[in-house]
């Protein structure tokens, strides 16, 4: 199953962020040349979260002892032993990570053909909201959910929300059918967050 982990625009080159896939915590990062990767959020050395690490060129380094990993997840450098070639067994846990139509998707493996079709849509913005799918359903009458993808109309423009479970809440990744409506849809999204959080309390 593919899980949306954000919008491409939220993850610039040289940046790492936390993500998830079905309860597994992830580090998702983009190399300086733009390559995307998603790994288990746990350094094979001593378990530090890799999402706290730093990107240099085409590598991600752990913030604890600086162990450095290439885009394939293999450890290429152990700073405490600069002349040692790290054994091939030292490898981050690699997930499949792709982006399509401005959305970053993570899956265990599988054909990209199964990605939801969002062609023609433009990315608006991602938000986090404290609430569950039931609250979201009450807050979004008229929207139709197909798995994690919710579609509807807002002020005459089509809107897609890709929903991601995020701890006690949800991540909502919004796209719309026309670039000219991005500001209006972004404002509408603020209202949705408020509504969901009110609904979640009732």
């Amino acid at each position, binding site marked *: 199953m593919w899980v949306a982990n954000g919008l491409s625009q939220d993850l610039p080159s040289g940046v790492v962020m936390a993500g998830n896939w079905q309860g597994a915590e992830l580090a998702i990062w983009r190399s300086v040349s733009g390559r995307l990767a998603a790994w288990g959020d746990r350094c094979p*050395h001593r*378990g530090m979260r890799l999402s706290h690490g730093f990107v240099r060129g085409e590598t991600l380094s752990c913030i604890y*002892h600086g162990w450095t990993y290439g885009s394939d997840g293999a450890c290429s450098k*152990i*700073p*405490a032993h600069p002349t040692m070639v790290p054994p091939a067994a030292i490898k981050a846990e690699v997930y499949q990570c792709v982006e399509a139509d401005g959305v970053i998707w993570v899956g265990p493996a599988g054909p990209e053909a199964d990605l939801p079709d969002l062609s023609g849509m433009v990315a608006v913005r991602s938000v986090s909201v404290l609430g569950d799918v039931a609250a979201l359903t009450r807050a979004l009458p008229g929207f139709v959910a197909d798995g994690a993808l919710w579609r509807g109309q807002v002020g005459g423009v089509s809107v897609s929300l890709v929903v991601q479970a995020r701890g006690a809440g949800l991540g909502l990744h919004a796209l719309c059918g026309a670039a000219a409506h991005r500001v209006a849809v972004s404002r509408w999204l603020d209202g949705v967050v408020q509504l969901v959080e009110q609904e979640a309390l009732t």
Partner: protein
Amino acid sequence: MIPAAVLNEWYPVAMIAQLAAWPGRQTLLLGSEINVFRDAAGAVVVQGADGPLAVTLAYGHVWACPGVPAHPLFPIPEADQPGRRLVDCGVVRVKCSPLRAVENFLDIAHFPFVHTDVLGAEPHTEVGRYEVQIREDSDEVWATKVHFYQPQAAKSAAGGIVTEYMYRVAAPTASVLYKTCPNNADEWDVIAIFVQPLTEELCEVWPWMALFDDTTPQADLIQFQQMIFLQDRSILENQIPRLLPLDPGKEIPTQADLTSIAYRRWLKRKGLTYGAQMVAA
């Protein structure tokens, strides 16, 4: 059930200088509520639900044993050495296993990345060979001949210097390090951490120092240690799993981790499993 081996050890529970009358310091030790206070006669009492605990006062701190003490509290002979300044550095609460806090204290390879430009700096990241032993006579873990390049070992130094360290695990949640002393070539500065295990995943860390340093203001010394420990906290609260793995699992140590390996082996051999996990995961 907490193993007797764990209950029969000494743990720090308060700073002597901060003691007050009942109810005093209300805190947790190994998950149980305790009060640390001075009674009407001025004696220090550590009160648990089932009565008072065995108490020792040493190194600026109150130490308590919830079981039957297996041995006296470990010695730090330098504490009584003339000319040393004893410095209490307050307390830092960390949401991590007490054992992870000690293991981090024993680690030098993180200096360039976590304490950048203070205790270490790239490209001086190499950890050379050092010696580790579990000393049978004192039943302590020791690492000696540890050398590391430090960019700011002394404020006056124009460049970095190589500092020599010795590390010592003297109790399951207490460790002492000896560091070459910038102000006295024949002596070692002594820096310790005393870790109070509140629960298996929550601890309070009391740094304590015995230094040859008459000039640096107390506030500066404390602020320096606090800064170092706050940097360590950002690591300790983000390690997975929360409990310290005592069996080889998903973690891969290298030669630089020999002290950590010995510490885990020593804990396991002694059955000191509070804050540890036995099953590899």
